[in-house]
């Protein structure tokens, strides 16, 4: 196993092309434990953190560009980003300890393809796009199309995520992310729920609900979002029957595993609760401009 630290995207492409089966990494917070657990070591470890573009967060012309290897603590500490995407910021702020967040990246969280990855539902709810180095050029795809199953992605051998792009949210729009874990900190989600919604006065006009950890990949639940569209907001609270419909739709969309951290029935029920609570937080933020 050889370590390489290219300083350009093209240099990284060449390394991957010349050494099939090699792996790119940013924080290695998943990679190192996987190798230690017996996963075959790649011929070349390609460290992406010396490539400026992958370590840069830019906000210009109504769009954010987030380098795929940027430590997630750079996002949670970025006041402008957190003000615009409080849900996405809180999602990455839940991933491990400070030690981990100084290394972990959006690119790694997505490409590792854990069904429980906290950033992924929040990225999908915000329609984040992944820019992928592919062949000699790039291709751009919605984040929702990257993970195809636990540990599986649609990235071809030699492809890697360069950066993420996301448009500034429309006015009166905000997001929220909640997760359930068996402990209070430092654990893996048994249910994650991201909600992004837009309000017009006391009416919800748009809503996206995305669940994590309840299926092989993050799942968008169109029926849950649709339940909120047109719902009235009374003193900051979304109409109860719309919320009931949302919760039922979220529960129905689950295809969870049964494990020591949560049973199928528990995950289904909690998915509805988390989606409902995330919607309640998001609507407050959207109405109050937070």
């Amino acid at each position, binding site marked *: *196993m050889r370590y390489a*630290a290219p300083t350009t995207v093209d240099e990284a492409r060449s390394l991957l092309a010349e050494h099939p089966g090699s792996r790119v990494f940013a924080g290695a917070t998943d990679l190192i434990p996987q190798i230690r657990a017996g996963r075959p070591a790649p011929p070349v*470890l390609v460290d992406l953190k010396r490539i400026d573009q992958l370590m840069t967060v830019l906000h210009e012309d109504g769009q954010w560009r987030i380098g795929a290897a940027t*430590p997630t603590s750079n996002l949670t500490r970025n006041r402008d980003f957190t003000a615009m995407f409080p849900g996405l910021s809180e999602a990455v702020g839940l991933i491990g300890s400070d030690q981990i967040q100084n290394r972990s990246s959006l690119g790694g969280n997505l490409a590792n393809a854990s069904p429980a990855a906290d950033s992924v539902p929040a990225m999908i709810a915000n329609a984040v796009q992944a820019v992928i180095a592919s062949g000699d050029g790039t291709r751009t795809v919605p984040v929702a199309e990257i993970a195809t199953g636990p540990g599986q992605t649609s990235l071809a051998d030699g492809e890697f995520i360069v950066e993420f792009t996301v448009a500034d949210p429309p006015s009166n729009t905000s997001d929220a992310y909640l997760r359930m874990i068996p402990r209070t900190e430092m654990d893996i989600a048994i249910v994650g729920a991201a909600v992004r919604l837009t309000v017009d006065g006391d009416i919800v006009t748009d809503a996206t609900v995305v669940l994590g950890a309840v299926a092989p990949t993050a799942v968008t639940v169109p029926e849950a979002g649709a339940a909120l569209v047109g719902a009235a907001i009374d003193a900051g609270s979304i109409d109860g029957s719309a919320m009931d419909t949302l919760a039922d739709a979220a529960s129905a969309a689950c295809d969870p595993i049964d494990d020591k951290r949560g049973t199928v029935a528990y995950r289904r029920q909690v998915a509805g609760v988390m989606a409902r609570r995330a919607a309640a937080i998001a609507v407050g933020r959207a109405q109050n401009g937070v």
Partner: protein
Amino acid sequence: MSRTHVTCTVNGDPVDFLASDDTSLLNALRGELGLTGAKEGCGTGDCGACSVLIDGRLNCSCLVFAPEAEGSDIVTVEGIADDDHLHPLQQAFLEGAALQCGICTPGVLIAAKALLDANPDPTETEIRYALAGNLCRCTGYDKIIRSVQEAAVRLKGAAR
């Protein structure tokens, strides 16, 4: 196995060493440089016993490949005292009996230093969150938290 020549700064001193490409920074610190303060607890980034500062940021050195350290500025627990004087965190831990077996202590001290460097006046909740990545299996958390609070008070007094 490839080996890489790494040049970096550790506790203010320029150092260089030869590291296997698949070895961790923690192994290089302990083996090549003889700095055995940072400990390997889990080796998977869960326990924080290997915590060091890299370019001022708190990291688990077990989750860093040694060659990644090229050009970086590293601080380990060996580097936080000032010549003959313990760091106020170390002194407060000693006085407050904030350690039992001591395995977690170097990592806790570094994590606490990272916190106080960024936030000299943390609340108890902020301290608990900042140390959430450092496990103590002797169950000494309350004494640790109180000692960090005491060190923060002393550091603020010294800064005045």
